[in-house]
């Protein structure tokens, strides 16, 4: 069955893209959960929807729209980042609602892709082009390199901003860089999971990993591993079943999360 599956170029591309996205989502997702920025992450992903729909409306490719909108949204959110937390949540929520509304509008205006709306929202493994994979790989290389360089100070600033600032860590700069990192990651992940299902890869593997290890390095590696296993399995199952990829991704990811919870219960 495997050899049959990989005889289709679209499945090969789906696996390539899925692998890249899983590694990124597992790593960046772990830090996002640690920083309690899941809501921001969700909004950045939601913004991908009007981004892709708008790009298609203008005759451009969807990935261009994803990256442009997610990064701009990250910059917008960083502007209010220093405001009070409650004010920030309100702004982030507003951005999210506005994004979904304008995405819907774009889809209606561009009558042609109405059938593609489901894919934009809930993900699809069909039709991932080789160009798309190359772009994803390039972006992922830049992001992972950045993550390795920022490594320790980013962890310090995430856990303990006051102490980090006093130790000379540029906390405000790291806040901004992480938002951009998260925006670019979300733009990559939505291309597989769709705008509404990003959490299956961005949050659940990280949350599961957190249950399994409380050492940052190990938990991060575990998060990546879980994201990879979930993605690979979901792609194979979606290929041979009538149900959509998003369904399998979320079911598997949620199952893994519950299992990890159970394991940590038993251990404690």
């Amino acid at each position, binding site marked *: 069955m495997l050899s049959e599956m990989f005889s289709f170029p679209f499945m090969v591309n789906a696996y390539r893209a899925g692998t890249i996205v899983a590694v990124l989502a597992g790593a960046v997702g772990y830090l996002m959960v640690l920083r309690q920025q899941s809501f921001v992450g969700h909004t950045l992903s939601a913004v991908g929807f009007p981004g892709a729909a708008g790009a298609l409306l203008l005759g451009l490719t969807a990935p261009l729209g994803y990256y442009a909108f997610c990064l701009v949204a990250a910059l917008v959110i960083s502007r209010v980042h220093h405001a009070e937390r409650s004010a920030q949540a309100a702004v982030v929520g507003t951005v999210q609602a506005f994004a979904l509304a304008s995405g819907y509008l774009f889809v209606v205006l561009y009558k042609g892709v109405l059938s593609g709306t489901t894919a934009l929202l809930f993900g699809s493994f069909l039709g991932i082009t080789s160009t798309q994979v190359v772009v994803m790989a390039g972006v992922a290389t830049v992001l992972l390199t950045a993550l390795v360089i920022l490594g320790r100070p980013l962890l310090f600033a995430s*856990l303990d901003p006051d102490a980090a600032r006093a130790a000379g860590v540029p906390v405000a700069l790291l806040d901004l860089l992480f938002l951009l990192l998260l925006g670019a990651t979300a733009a990559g992940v939505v291309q597989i999971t769709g705008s509404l299902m990003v959490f299956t890869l961005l949050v659940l593997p990280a949350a599961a990993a957190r249950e399994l290890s409380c050492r940052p390095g190990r938990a991060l590696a575990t998060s990546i591993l879980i994201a990879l296993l979930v993605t690979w399995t979901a792609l194979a199952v979606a290929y041979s079943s009538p149900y959509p990829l998003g369904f399998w991704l979320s079911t598997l990811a949620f199952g893994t999360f519950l299992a990890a919870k159970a394991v940590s219960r038993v251990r404690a």
Partner: protein
Amino acid sequence: MTAALELRAGALAVGGRLLWSELELTVEPGEFLAVLGPNGVGKSSLLNVVLGLRQLQRGEVTVLGGAPRDAVDRVGYLPQRRNFDPSVRIRGLDIVRLGVDGHRWGVPFPGRASRETWRWVRELVDDVGASAYADRPIGQLSGGEQQRLLIAQALARRPELLLLDEPLDSLDLPNQAAVAQLVSKLCTERGVAVVMVAHDVNPILPYLDKVTYLAPGGAACGTPQDVITSETLTGLFGVSIEVLRASDGRLVVVGQPEAPALHGDRHH
């Protein structure tokens, strides 16, 4: 010998409001200074000035013979009241380690250097008596246990000047005494200069070399015997304050000005 900390005719304004002025401070290596005063008077802000995170409006500050920002590597800092969220699943050891190398770019790779660092971290944790629970997720520790680990973090780079913002805050009486003793040992045995912000002077009174009382607009500095007296405090705050000495040597300050009374100009 250069002083660890020197402040000349210092005045600080935050948000356009003058907090204190005419502040004169000298802390020599090995000296233990307590900073006292009502809520909102600018005690934490004073520490921020020493860290170079806030600028004096007037006057001059010298830290270990230079500008505050040039001394970050040689200054340890314990921010005020940090309790980690119960959901933070990172070991106490990892939090302490951030104090050692959390400011360095990159990620630590396993090897000799890393093992050395862990040995130093264990030693730090031992010194503050936190070994029994340093392996557990910090979010699940009590406030006092967290505080001990954070003190270990502040000591991680063998500071010559240690700034502690209400370190006794969430501790019970025996632990207050133990931490006070630990800090005074650092002064006498390792020659560390300590500036401790405190609300209750009694647990540290036996070890103090100097006291600074901050009041809106002014300040009084000197030995505890000189500063914590009815005359000095009444003169400083402009309201009648009585200092009583209990038979066990404990000081009781009666009629201590309440924060709201000092904040007529503060808007909410």
